[in-house]
């Protein structure tokens, strides 16, 4: 109990402390404080004219299309290209589509095991490159949104912002994290697998590779795609407790900093404080639930001569400590990271509900940049509802929120639920899903629900027992990831574009303040109603049903 509390304080506290200076630095970086650097960037991009929301979105989509096409080709042709010491063969086209979509959209859903599927070139030149530029895309989008809503006349230039994000934020942090975890035991070699003869004389082949570089950006960019199949549960990807803590801090630090950056760009730090507070409350609630539920011993061992003095250890790693499994599960799903340090499929039923809740809300800090963008949608809805309740024209930061903006916000928020619940319904009703589940009954339904939630939230974790490397799964989740990524980025930019054309009104005594506890409560309730209630029936069929059967 005490050590769980200490571990949570260590990880969440350190990340929160780091996020403040990091947010300040990011604000300076994106405001063009480092003119010398920007000069280099402008030369690299050719020209960097100011863009309105349409131009910014088009630039974003153009670059992301290029990302997808390049990596699709690289993955498809890996067997003909160099840096393939373990002799990986050609992958199926549907898997190539799914993987390219997955890493382009910052999701990193993996329907494969890295060590037995991709060459080092595919992993580094394709997937790791996307881990940098897809995270940078999200950050750039948030900066553009903040500039627009904060009253600046233009949204900036996408190409310039992408470089600032990639070279100014992600790269230096990745270097630090990569070197640290390499010293703790994550391999960084191009030599291919090691063959050893064990003490009992058996030959064991151990996959290695340039993992340290990959793992660092996988965490910092809320990507989550593992170098090895079991992700950060693999001892070579997460070798000890301290590397583990470093990775957990790396997961949440930039999403936290994004909130402070948003507040500074719009010039409303107290408002950012309220948003940060609401997110933190949700995060801590989920962590408490998850850690508490997981202290129950593995139900399947009841009645056997097995000591029941520890929590559920199935799918967990001893070197990471008792708290890591449930804590990591919440951190990785609150952000859109999706790396795992314990098998989510083997979490106790109610523990498994906590990461799912993270995927549904998708705004407890959320993905790099996009988490705050999702929160912006909730904020727009919250001020609208609040405005209606008191009978005033709803305003946000002096912008009148009207029908057009609300329709767009609802489109983005509802699409999340439609993609997840619609996909789950289709796959649960047909052999596409039924034929692929690993556990029977309610837990099998949870596997399907989790997979679509993860794809829709651009998360990438999974109930990995699911046999998801099939054509229907690869295509369906590929499409869900693409829609679930670009709709919630473009729509908010459109909302801000629409708000920017209106005259801003000065705030008066009658305006709903966005800086106090009232607003915080209103926001939290909105998130709960939208995020939690929409998905409650599905939760009742999956994890809750499984838990209730257990209570018999």
């Amino acid at each position, binding site marked *: 109990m005490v*050590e769980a509390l200490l571990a949570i304080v260590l990880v969440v506290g350190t990340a929160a402390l780091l996020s403040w200076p990091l947010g300040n630095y990011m604000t300076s970086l994106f405001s063009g404080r480092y003119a010398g650097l920007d000069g280099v960037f402008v030369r*690299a991009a*050719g020209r960097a004219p100011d863009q309105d929301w349409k131009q910014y979105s088009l630039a974003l989509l*153009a670059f992301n299309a*290029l990302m997808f096409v390049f990596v699709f080709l690289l993955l498809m042709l890996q067997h003909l290209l160099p840096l393939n010491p373990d002799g990986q063969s050609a992958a199926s086209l549907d898997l190539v589509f799914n993987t390219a979509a997955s890493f382009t959209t910052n999701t990193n859903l993996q329907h494969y*095991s890295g*060590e037995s599927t991709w060459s080092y070139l595919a992993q580094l*030149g394709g997937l*790791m*490159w996307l881990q*940098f530029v897809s995270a940078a895309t999200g950050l750039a989008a948030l900066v553009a949104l903040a500039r627009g809503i904060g009253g600046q006349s233009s949204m900036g230039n996408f190409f310039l912002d992408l470089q600032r994000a990639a070279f100014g934020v992600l*790269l230096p942090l990745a*270097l630090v994290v990569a*070197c640290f975890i*390499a*010293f703790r035991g994550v*391999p960084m*070699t191009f030599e291919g*697998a090691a063959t*050893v*003869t064990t*003490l*009992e004389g*058996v030959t064991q082949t*151990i*996959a*290695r590779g*340039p993992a340290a*570089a990959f793992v660092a950006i996988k965490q910092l960019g809320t990507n989550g795609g593992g170098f*090895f199949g*079991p992700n950060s549960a693999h*001892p070579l990807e997460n070798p000890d407790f*301290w590397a583990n*803590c470093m990775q957990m801090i790396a997961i949440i630090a930039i999403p936290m900093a994004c909130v402070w950056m948003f507040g500074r760009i719009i010039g409303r730090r107290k408002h950012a404080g309220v948003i940060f507070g609401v997110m933190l409350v949700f995060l801590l609630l989920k962590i408490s639930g998850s850690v508490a539920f997981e202290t129950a011993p*593995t139900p399947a061992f009841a009645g*056997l001569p*097995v*000591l029941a003095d520890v929590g559920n*250890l*199935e*799918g967990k*790693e*001893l*070197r*990471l*400590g008792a*708290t890591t499994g449930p804590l990591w599960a919440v951190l990785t799903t609150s952000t859109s990271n999706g790396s795992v*340090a*314990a*098998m989510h*499929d*083997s979490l*106790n*039923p109610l523990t498994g509900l906590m990461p799912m809740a993270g995927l549904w809300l998708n705004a407890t800090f959320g993905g790099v940049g996009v988490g705050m963008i999702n929160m912006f949608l909730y904020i727009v809805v919250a001020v609208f509802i609040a405005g209606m309740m008191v009978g005033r024209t709803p305003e946000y930061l002096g912008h009148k929120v009207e029908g057009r903006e609300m329709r767009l916000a609802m489109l983005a928020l509802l699409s999340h639920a439609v993609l997840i619940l619609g996909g789950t319904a289709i796959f649960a009703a047909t052999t596409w899903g039924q034929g692929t589940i*690993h*556990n*029977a009954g309610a*837990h099998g339904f949870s596997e399907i629900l989790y997979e679509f939630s993860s794809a829709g939230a651009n998360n990438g974790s999974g109930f990995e*027992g699911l046999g998801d490397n099939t054509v229907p799964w690869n295509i369906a989740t590929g499409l869900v990831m693409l829609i679930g990524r670009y709709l919630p980025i473009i729509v908010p930019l459109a909302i801000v574009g629409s708000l920017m054309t209106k005259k801003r009104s000065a705030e008066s005594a009658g305006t709903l303040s966005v800086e106090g506890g009232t607003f915080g409560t209103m926001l939290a309730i909105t998130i709960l109603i939208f995020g939690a209630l929409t998905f409650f029936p599905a939760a009742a069929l999956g994890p809750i049903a*499984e838990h209730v059967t257990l209570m018999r």
Partner: protein
Amino acid sequence: MTYLLPSLRLWALTLLVCVVAYTALVFGFAQALAPYRANGSIVEVDGRAVGSELVAQGFTAPRYFWPRPSAVDYDGMGAGGSNLSPTSPHLTARAVETVSRYRATADTPVPADLVAASGGGLDPHISLAGALYQADRVAAARGLDVRVVRGIARDTAAAPGAVFAPEPVVNVLQLNLALDQIKP
């Protein structure tokens, strides 16, 4: 064209910086300062590679300490967990087998980590309790005093994360290597 040209320029630049330069830097650092770690922590005995310190191997002989169960049979090229629900009857069936291998009874219940499979199937550790539980078998098979075996297990044990994760764990490969060092 307005967007394609800058996209292509950025494509080349980010590949060069974020992939080539970044990878080279991390590779250089790791190989120069921590080559043992960077190459997978491969343990050698008399110049022969016997395993990775970080990767479990499947000990089955009574004279060795056994690791946690592995859903992938300690396959270093295809790691993975069981992904069984903690309520699954398949998990119970697997646990029954493991329990009988340890000959556990209601009076001598086995520590849970020896029955639960790890997430990657390659967890190199068992709990200290799990090691002490096996000490009698190992000592008998080797003709050693059980107190000596227990002592070695305690010496090999360490808390993985100071006060944040104090439950002591034992690296199975290191423990078995230490056992092989002593002559009965």
